[in-house]
């Protein structure tokens, strides 16, 4: 069976005054229906750029490589250029939710009016139907007084409720793929738990595929089926969530886990990954992580051999550290 989404050999570059930046290099990912792919990594690792590529939302200074493919529902979205085609993905087959819900809502338009407008663009229905779908969806995400909220502006809602309204709007068009970019990062843990449960219920109910971006490994453990770990534009490790969190192989994944304060293990020291993430303008050749890796071998080949994932356990892929520095389980 083919995947709902398949990203193959994607590079994303930006032309800037300081030169050409490689934000994403040679990544391949897939998402199936009803599945959550978590993408985790530090700030600047390319998570949002990857998600935006799927919706063709990167700005005008972006270039993609010729041989890259983003196959959604058997079509390569990278070849979409017409408005008509783009409409099929943006708000059609794909919806996106963000950390800051105000980014989704126009401040001067009522929540309901925006939901209705979006539905009218993407679905062949009339205004009355669109209104009833919207109100039902607001109810579905747990908003009390949905009829009243329908007629309010986003700024009139509390933080948690705004997050729910944004999710309702993203889901009302019944997308096949939901891109969630740090949707719980700005929330308190209690509200985060509510939103995570809501998203999980909805995925089950509608069988959509989800890419869930976060820098929080705890959130990943709670929502993802599969995980891709990104560093400086590369996927360094990917696989089933249990494998990645309990049997991590790549030094970067291990580093992230060791830096994390674990409430169940208060005696463990917090060990930062040494050094700083390099500027994408000085992206290291060969292994992208070598400037910070504790296993970096100056006599080894990590500066010369390209990044390439190899399968170490069924479905568990890790960069070929082994032939560069003799690492990997």
């Amino acid at each position, binding site marked *: 069976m083919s995947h709902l989404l398949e990203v193959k050999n994607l590079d994303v570059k930006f032309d800037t005054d300081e030169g050409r930046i490689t934000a994403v290099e040679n990544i391949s990912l897939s998402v199936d229906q009803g599945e959550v792919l978590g993408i985790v990594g*530090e*700030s600047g690792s390319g998570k949002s750029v990857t998600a935006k590529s799927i919706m063709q939302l990167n700005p005008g200074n972006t270039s993609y490589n010729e041989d890259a493919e983003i196959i959604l529902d058997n079509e390569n979205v990278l070849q979409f250029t017409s408005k008509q085609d783009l409409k099929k993905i943006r708000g059609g087959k794909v919806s996106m939710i963000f950390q800051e819900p105000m980014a989704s809502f126009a401040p001067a338009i009522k929540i309901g009016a925006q939901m209705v407008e979006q539905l009218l663009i993407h679905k062949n229905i009339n205004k009355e139907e669109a209104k009833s779908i919207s109100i039902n969806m607001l109810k579905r995400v747990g908003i009390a007084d949905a009829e009243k909220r329908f007629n309010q502006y986003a700024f009139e809602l*509390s*933080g*948690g*409720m705004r997050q729910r309204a944004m999710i309702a709007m993203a889901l009302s068009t019944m997308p096949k793929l939901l891109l969630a970019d740090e949707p719980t990062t700005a929330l*308190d*843990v*209690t*509200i*985060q*738990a*509510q939103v*995570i*449960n809501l998203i*999980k219920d909805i995925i089950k109910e509608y069988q959509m595929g989800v890419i869930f971006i976060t*820098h*929080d*490994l*705890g*959130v990943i*453990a*709670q929502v*993802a089926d599969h995980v891709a770990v990104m560093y400086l534009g590369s996927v360094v490790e990917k696989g089933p*969530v*249990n494998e990645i*969190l*309990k049997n991590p192989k790549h030094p970067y994944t291990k*580093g*992230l*886990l060791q*830096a*994390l*304060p*674990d*409430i*169940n293990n*208060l005696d463990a020291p*917090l*060990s*930062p*990954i040494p050094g*700083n*993430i390099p500027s994408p303008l000085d992206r290291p050749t060969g292994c992208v992580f070598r400037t910070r890796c504790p296993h970096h071998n100056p006599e080894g080949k990590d500066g010369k051999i390209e990044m390439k994932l190899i399968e170490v356990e069924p479905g568990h892929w890790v960069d070929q550290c082994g032939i560069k520095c003799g690492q990997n389980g």
Partner: protein
Amino acid sequence: MGDNLISVNNVSVNFDYQENFISKKQKIHAVNNINIKIKKGSFFGLVGESGSGKTTLGRAILGANKISSGNVIFHDEERDYDLTDMNKQDLKEYRKKAQLIFQDPYAALSPRMTVRDIIAEPLEVMRITNSRQETDERVRDIAAKCRLNIEHLRRFPHAFSGGQRQRISIARALVSNPKFIVADESVAALDVSIQADILNLLKQLQTELNLTYLFISHDLSVVAHVCDVVAVMYLGHIVEMGPSRELFKNPKHSYTKALLSSIPSIDPEKRSEAIELKGEIPSALNPPPGCVFRTRCPNPGVDCKGGEIKMGLIEVEPGHWVDQCCAI
């Protein structure tokens, strides 16, 4: 007062609120009747959801918010400062001794200032140093302690990473040689690795410079790792307080339990054990009478006295305090 540095006694902070000019004047009860003692050399944690009053309490202790009732005493070596009764001279001295770590100093500062000027500013504003040379020495000294590269002092801050910016912010707070530091969400915006680095730095500076911290955070895992005492706040009240390990191992208050269970476990096999709290924190304009957590409490006991008793902490184990509505 022996080994305490700060005593917060029955402190309340209210803000006046008027929806529009014809509506009735109301009060926002941001902080209610708080009693805490912060020991010298302690890493005192303050946790709770957004809007629970953490920042307001921190600012009140720094003398940056008016205190509506009660008092805060800072026990210095030679004398006590009563924050509700200070003249200008006292306030000037207190400012040197108690400092805030900004979440991001550039939000407030001119982008045309060099890192050196940012760190030096408190020395100049408070007229602590007498010559440029003396200022430079102090700046270099604290920058080195905060593991900042001396060459970076001449640069402008925009190019720095989050971790470096946070170190500049810490250096700026410490340059006046304070004894007490309020760190309000100081690691909230950082990636885990940088967060670990900054937390280790704060710990190290604490020993090196004999600092006492009030560490405000909404991240319980972080607080559990660095703090020795923790107070849990909800809607302006401290509902539970105690030695960090005891509190996290043996939480007594329903709110603390719910909060702890909401931390997403790093183990994918332990999913959805969260005690889900319904709704959000109520408005501080009309806090519920009796137990303030009553409107969201997932498991009010059969004999729960939450509606009848006034809030107030009682000691259930040595040093472990729980709100009496919940404890009785």
